[in-house]
């Protein structure tokens, strides 16, 4: 095959992948059916608010963590490719979770994390809160994404929402490892504060929105079926495969 044809095929494949969400009759979880976080989320603290001081303290804590191993992990957590995210959660679950080893789980998580972002997005747009690096005009520890995220709202945190959603769903699949899974999900959110992309209150709100998303998912028959399949896949893998080393 000529290189130009190969690139065409690759480009088409990527575009199809980017269109990611299936729009089919059974997929009733459209944007309008998700919870509208702005309906029950409080407004983020204004910079003139005394409550902002907590966010400020956490922003400084985040900066102090950047040149440490925890800071390096935070940079990795910023990469929201499902393969990277799952690599982290694999240790908590006790088996390798990849698109190859657990395809149903990966598809489930990719799909529903995207849907969860709909719940957060309206609130983001409504509040239009400036990210810490935008507000303070200071560098983050993930320089290459600064331009992309610059115009987007900070509150609530999409990463924190997705991380907590994954934690809750994996806990349901592996309740015997819930503490480790939820602890990892907690840290996933805190990484956003460390890299300077979010205030602590953005991350707190993200976790809160996540729980409302998971409640909505469970009201959907398609989700329940897909979740049951993913659970069977993971449980089978846990029973038949060797466990990976626990996450540090």
């Amino acid at each position, binding site marked *: 095959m000529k290189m130009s044809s190969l690139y065409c095929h690759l480009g088409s494949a990527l575009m199809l992948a980017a269109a990611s969400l299936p729009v089919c009759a059974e997929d009733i979880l459209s944007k309008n059916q998700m919870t509208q976080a702005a309906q029950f989320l409080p407004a983020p603290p204004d910079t003139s608010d005394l409550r902002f001081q*907590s966010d400020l303290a956490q922003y400084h804590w985040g900066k102090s963590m950047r040149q440490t191993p925890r800071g390096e992990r935070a940079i990795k957590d910023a990469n929201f490719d499902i393969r990277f995210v799952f690599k982290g959660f694999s240790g908590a679950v006790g088996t390798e979770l990849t698109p190859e080893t657990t395809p149903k789980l990966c598809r489930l998580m990719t799909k529903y994390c995207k849907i969860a972002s709909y719940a957060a997005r309206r609130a983001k747009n409504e509040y239009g809160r400036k990210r810490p690096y935008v507000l303070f005009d200071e560098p983050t520890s993930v320089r290459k994404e600064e331009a992309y995220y610059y115009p987007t709202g900070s509150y609530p945190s999409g990463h924190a929402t997705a991380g907590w959603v994954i934690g809750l769903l994996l806990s349901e699949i592996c*309740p015997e490892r819930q503490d480790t899974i939820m602890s990892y999900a907690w840290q996933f959110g805190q990484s956003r504060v460390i890299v300077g992309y979010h205030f602590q209150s953005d991350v707190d709100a993200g976790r809160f929105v996540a729980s409302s998303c998971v409640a*909505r998912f469970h009201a959907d028959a398609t989700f329940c079926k897909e979740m049951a399949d993913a659970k069977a896949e993971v449980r089978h893998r846990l029973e038949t495969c060797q466990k990976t080393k626990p996450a540090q």
Partner: protein
Amino acid sequence: MNHTSTLLFLAMALSIGGQEARGDSFLTRDDMPNAVNYLPVYPYTDDTRYLDDWVQYSWGKTVRNTTRGQQAVADAIYSVSSISKGFNAAFGMTISSSNTPELYKLLTKALGDCSNGTYVAKNYYMRKRPFDYYGESSATPNDEASLRKNGSYPSGHTTAGWTFALLLAEINPARQDTILSRGYQYGQSRVIVGVHYQSDVTAGRLVASAVVARLHADAAFMEQLKKAKAEFAAKSGM
């Protein structure tokens, strides 16, 4: 001992057990996730983050002599009947043992799981309640004696309120935003009455999400949830 004495003795024994149906839950305490392991420690009073807790405690006091303050006092009763009553309007249906028996059974047992879900962390940290720390009165003075002996972090009421909100939103997604909004306010009521810090309440909602996830991994819970959903569908003519 004659029959009357026996019955009297039994009645006393049952009432001393308290309002919480601690024996009535889907899971055991050991089954529940341990918040000490997945949540951070609360902010100490010399931590800059404590300022947020102090600001919110002060805010709570300004709300007490308002209609919202009255609601906060009503929200202080920790029982399935009281908590679910607070959701009737948001849910769009009266939640009771007579009107929605399956849902009521679900929530009664889930309340027990909520108590179990906060027990370990509360006792581990034994954080002092704000009214106790400041030597001031709360808006629910009758609860103060028992609350002094009960750790503040995380908030048990908030865990219960947010758990109820998540379950009711799952059963009635058409009214999810109203239900969740009420669930959110239920937690804030604890700050208003002065028996919890904001960080206790924020943590309580996270514990609730973990409790609900754990319950969804339990067959008996899922069976009861299915009954509650079917009951709701039948009653709302779906």
